[in-house]
């Protein structure tokens, strides 16, 4: 039978895997690693893998384009691979080649803004503190630059989509 090749992102990391199903056995290859396992579907969200005298139950559920997979208590997020334009901080966007638009990595409430517009900032300097689930999280800049625009105020509820601050590279 034919071989299918998948380009996945596993927790953000590109991984290529090829699989085939032959005589009821799933053969998966990744780099030099080969897994041959008998796979049984227990339910819509549960698979059983049997190989090398072991049995492992794997749970998985799809949410939009992401698939969440649990293997032995560890959870992974797998999605379709897309070409990326390089990574800065968590979820930050480069607006232009030189600027950084900083977002909150999680929904929460702004409790402190540590800089003002026009201020020079250094890499890893704390810009904003966002509180979520009663914990303070310091949002830092990944580049040296100047604070170009502050989009939020103390007390604002923010999600992980809206930019908090824009930093212009020096």
């Amino acid at each position: 039978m034919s071989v299918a090749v998948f380009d996945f992102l596993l927790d953000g990391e590109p991984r290529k895997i090829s699989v085939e199903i032959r005589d009821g056995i799933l053969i998966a290859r990744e780099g030099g690693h080969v897994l041959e396992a008998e796979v049984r579907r227990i339910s819509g969200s549960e698979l059983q893998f049997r190989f090398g005298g072991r049995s492992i139950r794997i749970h998985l559920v799809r949410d939009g384009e992401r698939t969440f997979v649990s293997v032995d208590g560890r959870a992974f997020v797998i999605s379709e691979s897309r070409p990326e334009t390089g990574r800065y901080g968590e979820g930050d966007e480069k607006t232009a080649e030189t600027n950084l638009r900083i977002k909150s990595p999680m929904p929460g409430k702004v409790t402190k803004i540590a800089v003002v517009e026009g201020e020079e900032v250094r890499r890893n300097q704390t810009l904003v503190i966002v509180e979520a689930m009663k914990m303070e999280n310091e949002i830092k800049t990944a580049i040296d630059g100047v604070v170009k625009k502050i989009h939020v105020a103390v007390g604002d509820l923010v999600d992980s989509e809206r930019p908090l601050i824009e930093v212009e590279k020096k």
Partner: protein
Amino acid sequence: MFGKVLIANRGEIAVRVIRACREMGIGSVAVYSEADAASLHVRLADEAVPIGPPPAVESYLNMERILAAARATGAEAIHPGYGFLAENAEFARLCETSGVVFIGPNSAALELVGDKVRARQTMEKAGVPTIPGMKSVSSSPDEFRTAARALGYPVMVKASAGGGGKGMRVVCDESGLIPALESGMREAKSAFGDDSVYLEKCIEEPRHVEFQVLADNRGRTVHLFERECSIQRRHQKILEESPSPALDPELRARMGETAVRAMRAAGYNNAGTVEFLLDRDRRFYFLEVNARIQVEHPVTELVAGVDLVRQQILIASGADLSLRQEDLRQRGHAVECRIYAEDPKTNFLPSAGRIALLREPKGPGVRYDSGVYEGFEVPVFYDPILAKLIVWAEDRETACRRMSAALDDCVILGIHTTAGFLKDVVNHPEFRAGRATTSFIGKFFPSWGTGEGEEDGRRLALAAAAFEALAPTVGPESLSGRGGGKKDVATPWTTLGRWRAGGET
């Protein structure tokens, strides 16, 4: 006994108290914020009363609304759980004056032990060893600077109303003092509505060992042995066990006796915990009293064979303590892991969202106290605790193995949780050897997510995702039973992954 109890809390502890009420034939009243209308505690309670908007200050910390809910439903007592109003003496007093029983210590004892500075003074007088520190709170940077120099760095910023590590900061030198004070005060204000902080000498690499105490309203007081809670992140406990691998019977007896003396000195009643730091030379220091039921109470329940929440309700109703110190025994070993909605791979950022899939671990000696369910949307407003996994076994090694296996069966998908990280903690040789101190996580897990042992799991996850993409419609029979999955390899491929057929064989 009460006919009806209101639970002024949410999440797993509210569920825990509701269950105890049900077993005792007591009606339960849940209260909930707008963010919690679909929460598990609301679903399980006999009655549920909305008490305001999502932020805790407008709902779970709103004393008037909670008391109004108790009056409206005819609840005779309020169980505060942990956090929120649990250690708020003003609330306990309001309950007392409005004729509602506060299931916890009397307001005078609560006020005393809740004020960390006064508590220290009381303990010193009672001959309980304490950590050197400031004798009073302050708001003057100069006073803090002088005090820190006198104590000698490193020092610890602590919230006077504190608990759970909120507002706590370690300061290694003077340059870090003011930022640590500011951030500690801000966090204390938001967590407790009180921003007073003070300084203490920082004991390096201590163990955190605490003793569970029960005292009835007539002053009969017993301890139910220790819990070792040295595994902490940001001063927040994440794994607890009983007995502590660091104690021998002689030290245990001495610390237990000290804990009982401490609670008597404070005029304490109901359930409470005396926290100690134990240094490398097996000297112990009084840290604080946690005047509430604690997150980690189940490990004590399992080794001592006592239902602590039931005891709390019995004591609050005026019953005499039926337990006698000489009858109490520690049997076997219990370990608890706190499952938090946090992503260990991104330095434990909170992870709110919808739980897409949930499977609870089961089996002999396995207990799972949960506040969530499949389909539940975890709100951003509250503590990230989702559930607690507790195991009991005959000895420590067996309990650790049981915990590791139970964590394998702990499935929460759709949000990030700490389950996988906790499994690495439980299986770490240093922890297994019983040598972990409060520095354990910082020392052995400065970051997490790239562990060697995880690679097999990653490959299996990829293989499972590929299988799912190839054969999402395969029924409950195994592939072998259907003579191969060729027919099932159809259009759904494109929904996951870029693929091509052919190529390598």
